[in-house]
């Protein structure tokens, strides 16, 4: 089982925290779509017999695409690769793009899962983040999406925002629950280098983020969602049974994926590839019939460490049998040795030959994974 990711590198405006690759000028949208179509053609032999089970429009903001463009991309994807039955087809959308008409078109184009960038239900937060929509649009678009026939919907929420106390955050989670979505992705606000937020904090225009607050709000989040019947299946992802994101899960399960579009990453067997993060360079190469990509070969150690890092983000954690099967025996020995003190501290649990991080330590997942890395 494998997945296909299409990167749509355009946004209406830049959010203060965002370090994804996108352009706020839509001028070259059409040639970009053509380039993405062409890259799919160039990559038609990427998968070696695997069937695809998910298609994901990410970005950027894929909802800026015209109906015809989306249809063309979906159809091209179907023509070019081999698909399993009932694939998951997700599109990331911002509320301001989701008119009733747009939603109907998306449905018609074959999209069956929407990921809506709500981020917050308060206008003051949205303004602070320089989002292109308001709270009112977030709520109405969700209702419209339902009416258009979407029931597999996820929304993004950000916590750890300045001026958001714990009560306000609880209220956010409550509102998300009231909207009845079966999936929520919720991220701690993070200061990434080369973002407006980073710049503001560096210059002292904004105070640094409060890690304590983030830790508290993370706990509020999983406790409330747990009560509401959601599974906390990955650090930042929560789903009602049967509604986990299939596409994103493939990243944490080491399954192959092809990423098409500027800055997109692909992974298969021993290699990871990444396209250039520059729209013009990307187009120029593709127009000449070449891929604009670099790659790295992953050693056994790299793959082992990646498996630990991604699997330990998930609720199920990592599978010791899988490790025995996939890696040389020394990796299993090594892991057992490294795991011991971590188990002792209660930062890992071992059950049915699986190792996972208990709820109270999940905000330390990276550190815990790193402590088990093979160096």
């Amino acid at each position, binding site marked *: 089982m494998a997945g296909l990711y299409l990167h749509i590198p355009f946004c209406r405006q830049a959010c203060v925290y965002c370090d994804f690759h996108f352009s706020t000028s839509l001028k070259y949208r059409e040639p970009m779509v053509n380039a993405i179509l062409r890259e799919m053609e160039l990559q038609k032999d990427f998968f070696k017999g695997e069937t695809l089970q998910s298609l994901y429009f990410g970005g950027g903001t894929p909802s800026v695409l015209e109906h015809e463009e989306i249809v063309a991309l979906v159809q091209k994807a179907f023509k070019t690769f081999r698909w399993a039955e009932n694939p998951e087809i997700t599109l990331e959308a911002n509320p301001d793009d989701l008119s009733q008409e747009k939603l109907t078109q998306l449905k018609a184009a074959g999209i069956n899962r929407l990921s809506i960038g709500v981020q917050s239900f308060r206008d003051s937060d949205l303004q602070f983040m320089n989002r292109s929509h308001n709270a009112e649009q977030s709520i109405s678009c969700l209702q419209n999406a339902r009416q258009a026939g979407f029931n597999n919907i996820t929304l993004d929420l950000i916590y750890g925002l300045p001026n958001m106390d714990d009560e306000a955050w609880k209220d956010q989670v409550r509102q998300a629950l009231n909207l009845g979505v079966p999936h929520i992705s919720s991220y701690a606000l*993070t200061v990434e280098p080369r973002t407006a937020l980073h710049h503001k904090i560096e210059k002292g225009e904004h105070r640094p983020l409060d890690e304590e607050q983030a830790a508290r709000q993370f706990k509020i989040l999983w406790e409330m969602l747990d009560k509401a019947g959601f599974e906390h299946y990955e650090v930042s992802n929560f789903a009602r049974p049967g509604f986990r994101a299939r596409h994103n899960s493939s*990243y944490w399960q080491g399954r192959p994926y092809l990423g098409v579009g500027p800055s997109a990453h692909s992974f298969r067997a021993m290699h990871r590839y990444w396209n250039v993060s520059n729209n013009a360079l990307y187009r120029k190469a593709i127009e000449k019939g070449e891929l604009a990509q670099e790659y790295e070969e992953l050693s056994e150690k790299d793959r082992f460490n990646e498996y630990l890092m991604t699997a330990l983000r998930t609720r199920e954690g990592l599978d010791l049998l899988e490790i025995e099967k996939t890696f040389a025996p020394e990796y299993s020995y090594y892991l057992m040795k490294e795991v011991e003190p971590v188990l002792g501290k209660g930062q890992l649990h071992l059950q049915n030959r699986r190792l996972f991080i208990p709820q109270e330590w999940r905000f*330390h997942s*990276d550190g815990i994974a*790193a402590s088990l*890395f093979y160096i």
Partner: protein
Amino acid sequence: MKNIRNFCIIAHIDHGKSTLADRLLESTQTISDRDKKDQLLDDMDLERERGITIKSHAIQMVYKNGEGEFTLNLIDTPGHVDFSYEVSRAIAACEGALLVVDAAQGIQAQTISNLYLALEHDLEIIPVLNKIDLPSANPEEVKDQIIDLIGCDESDIIPASAKTGMGISEILEAVVQRIPAPVGDPDAPLQALIFDSVYNPYRGIEAFFKVVNGRIRSGEAVKFMATGHQYGADEIGVLRLKQEPRKEISAGNVGYIISGIKQAKEVKVGDTITAMEKPAKEAIAGFENVKPMVFAGIYPVDTEDFEELRASLEKLQLNDASLTFEPESSAALGFGFRCGFLGMLHMEIVQERLEREFDMTVITTVPNVSYRAYLKKNPEKEIIINNPSEFPDPSTLDHIEEPYIKAQIITKSDYVGGIMNLCIEKRGILKNQVYLTSERVELSFDLPLTEIVFDFYDRLKTISRGYASLDYHPLGYRETEMVKVDIMLNGDPVDALSALIHRDNAYDLGKKMCEKLRELIPRQQFMIAIQAAIGAKIIARETLSALRKDVTAKCYGGDISRKRKLLEKQKAGKKRMRQVGNVEIPQQAFLAVLKLND
């Protein structure tokens, strides 16, 4: 003997000593083109990388001119102050010296200090103005400096370029014409001066010597006079590019001996070799037991590696006789060794060689100099303190003494003010100030050695934009007021972070140490209080907040590689940390006090 010339090259670092040596070896066809590589005499990896000579070496050349065939022994000397005793012994084995001065940089501190050493031993000085090919060369001014310094004629100075080969034949001719042949009585009892030794893993210890009187014969029984050890001279020979065994080496000449010596410690630079049959009455003058100047603890990061560390230090000592070590233990770090070094460069080199050649991961603790304490109950008796943990309870102390050095600093006059301030901050006393030229000043300070250890050299370089040069010599001990500053993490003292500091600087340094540690210790899952204390009194405090979030919010297709690399780095860093109590301390934090002003 009249066809032998023994000479060395003295130069400030980077003035071209090693390169000039290469040219001389090529010009005399001592090395063929096939063996050619730059700075041939610097054969330790570390020497090549750092571009400095750590150990001295010797090499013999054959030079022919119209008058006949000459044996030239070139003795290469290390260029750093840490190794000045080795320099002095190498100089003692010579009759002449090439004084190499960079035509762009002019005379520097080591040029002068090594020159004085050479003059003390009555060496014939041949001034060489090197690098005249450089566009920035300033031959006229530098010539004047040389004339002022040694009082030679302008025509005595040989302009040269070790890079282009210019002046090389003049230099060789001058070596033969101007440097006197060695004097010595080949029929007197054997006296050979040891000026260096190396450890060869296949052949054991090789000692290098100059026969001052008498002759040494292969196979005879010899005695090292200072240590009293006796050996059979299993093999003796001369030092061509490769060693060439000889039956006999007689007065005036330079050679090597292999004699079943097990450890470098047995070979003391400056010792005299004599023959058991007809031994010399006395040794050659000038022998000193070199004493380490700087001490620090070296501990394995992984406590299980203690024995391996011991074995590695023993092997290092095989070819580094000036390294001393003895086991010690620390409450924080467990078992390790208190090591003695000639200076800070020596300490760095040892640490680096341990990591590089022996694959050891070690923690080096705050270095200190050797103090002398005198207690009230017996003020006559000196107690040597090489470790802060040996520092007596202040209430029992009568007084304490610390080592001083004489520092010579040569700088452009523009920087005199800044350097004065630095030296005064470092408790220095200005002794002399001489204008070498209108722009170049030589400053002499009496300074506590400990102040040179802590953050002196880098600051001197910064203040003078890299121009000032420093050289120093021990001056003996003077009374002082030292206190022991302890560092506590979450209330527990970490003995390995304790430092002996002059009372006047204790508060300031204590504060800076806490600040530096706060920067260097990574945040952990709990809060950490970092405190500095003198006795029971807290003098500074910093708080390192707990790490509450240690996970990235997103981990999708495009994030995995970057994130894995980041976490790998983190884990690699952790492996170099030492857990003390429940706090993990990175390796470099133990040396933090050396770099408080970064």
